[in-house]
């Protein structure tokens, strides 16, 4: 096709599952995060190797950890849908390499490592929580906007999610069994986070409207009858 200057440019053809790096994030049309996770893991491992051979003083190691690699890995989190296991893997690579370098024993309890200072923790960021908070933050900020392209995209995705679930009510409060009915998506990942941490988010996504009196939605009815995860 022609570019803005009129030159003919070949169009690259990709598979739906193939990710392409856009604005420092590897995104695939089908939403899989394999390439992005691989990229983040290699980045973390590369930093860990350099840290081991660098022999920085403790305070500089801590500063490098918090201000370089952590920020690099945090940057794409608002758009990623990494699983908890993937986030723990990333944290694990950094913690195993950096903890001894800052003078903390490698077997230091991980829960305490991520805990705030007032609870005598090290306040090392947990990427899964960072990602979930970024998602919720984005949802709240964009929820009132009707013109922002991302807000409209989110609204369309939420409406599609409602149709795919076949349930009414607040989107993130529908029965958890509906989770398996959904395709992988940003909103599904957010719902998982919200569910895991017992958060409540209300929305104004319209309900499916009944056709008749005494009408019932099929999915909640099937769930009541005991058809779970089928």
């Amino acid at each position, binding site marked *: 096709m022609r570019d803005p200057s009129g030159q003919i440019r070949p169009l690259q053809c990709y598979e739906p599952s193939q990710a392409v790096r856009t604005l420092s994030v590897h995104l695939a049309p089908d939403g899989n995060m394999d390439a992005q996770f691989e990229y983040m893991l290699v980045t973390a491992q590369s930093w860990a190797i350099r840290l081991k051979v660098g022999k920085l003083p403790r305070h500089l190691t801590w500063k490098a950890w918090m201000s370089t690699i952590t920020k690099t890995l945090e940057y794409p989190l608002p758009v990623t849908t990494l699983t908890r296991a993937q986030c723990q893997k990333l944290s694990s690579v950094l913690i195993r390499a950096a903890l001894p370098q800052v003078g903390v024993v490698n077997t230091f309890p991980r829960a305490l490592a991520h805990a705030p200072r007032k609870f005598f923790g090290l306040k090392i960021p947990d990427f899964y929580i960072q990602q979930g908070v970024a998602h919720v933050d984005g949802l709240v900020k964009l929820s009132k906007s009707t013109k922002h392209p991302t807000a409209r995209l989110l609204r369309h995705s939420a409406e599609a999610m409602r*149709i795919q679930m076949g349930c009414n009510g607040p989107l993130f409060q529908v029965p958890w069994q509906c989770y398996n009915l959904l395709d992988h998506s940003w909103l599904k990942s957010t719902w998982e986070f919200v569910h895991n941490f017992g958060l409540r988010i209300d929305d104004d996504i319209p309900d499916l409207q009944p056709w008749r*009196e005494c*009408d019932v939605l099929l999915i909640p009815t099937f769930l009541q009858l005991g058809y779970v995860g089928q």
Partner: protein
Amino acid sequence: MCRLYLKVSWLSEICSGDGIRIIRRFFEHSAIPVTSDVRYPIQGDPPKGAWIIWKRALQRLCNNNQVLHQPLGHWVRSPAWLYDPVSERLFHQAETTREYQQVRTRRSRNSWATFSNPVDAGEIPKSALPATVIPGQNPMMTGFSELLQTDGMHRADTFLSFLSGINAEARWVVQNVEIVGDWESWASASEHRLQGVSDGISTSRELLAG
């Protein structure tokens, strides 16, 4: 999986017009998706195992004759239309009284029908099915959401040859006509010759143009 394939969310979407029973074909593996105004995600034909679970779940809602344990009530969405493929009658629910009226069809000499003012429907046939109808100015344009019983169809390269090939005794509803290409040229070609025939998946703009 079967629900998304069939493009239904509510029980009423798979029930007969009288709200008493589930339509038999929705129990079967070969069920054809409903034409819906809602944009459902694309879902391929589910595996046999999924259909077995679907059938088993539906059977919990009705007895062996597909009669619902809890019949459905009046239509709450307005306007609501029903089409009875057996008697070829179309029913419309009045917005004020919520009673059904039969939309009279008047056959013209070339066997196509036009719709005129409604009359009292009386009892709704049990074979009546939910339908999608888009009223135009004149004539009324319709797009039915359910399978209709019609005569055999044929293929034609142009719309005029298609019309000339239809048996003069053809019934007033035509099924399985796939129009490919420019809608407006089809609309001008069909002027005064064809009224309100659609496969139900067209947008209202296309139907009104046609």
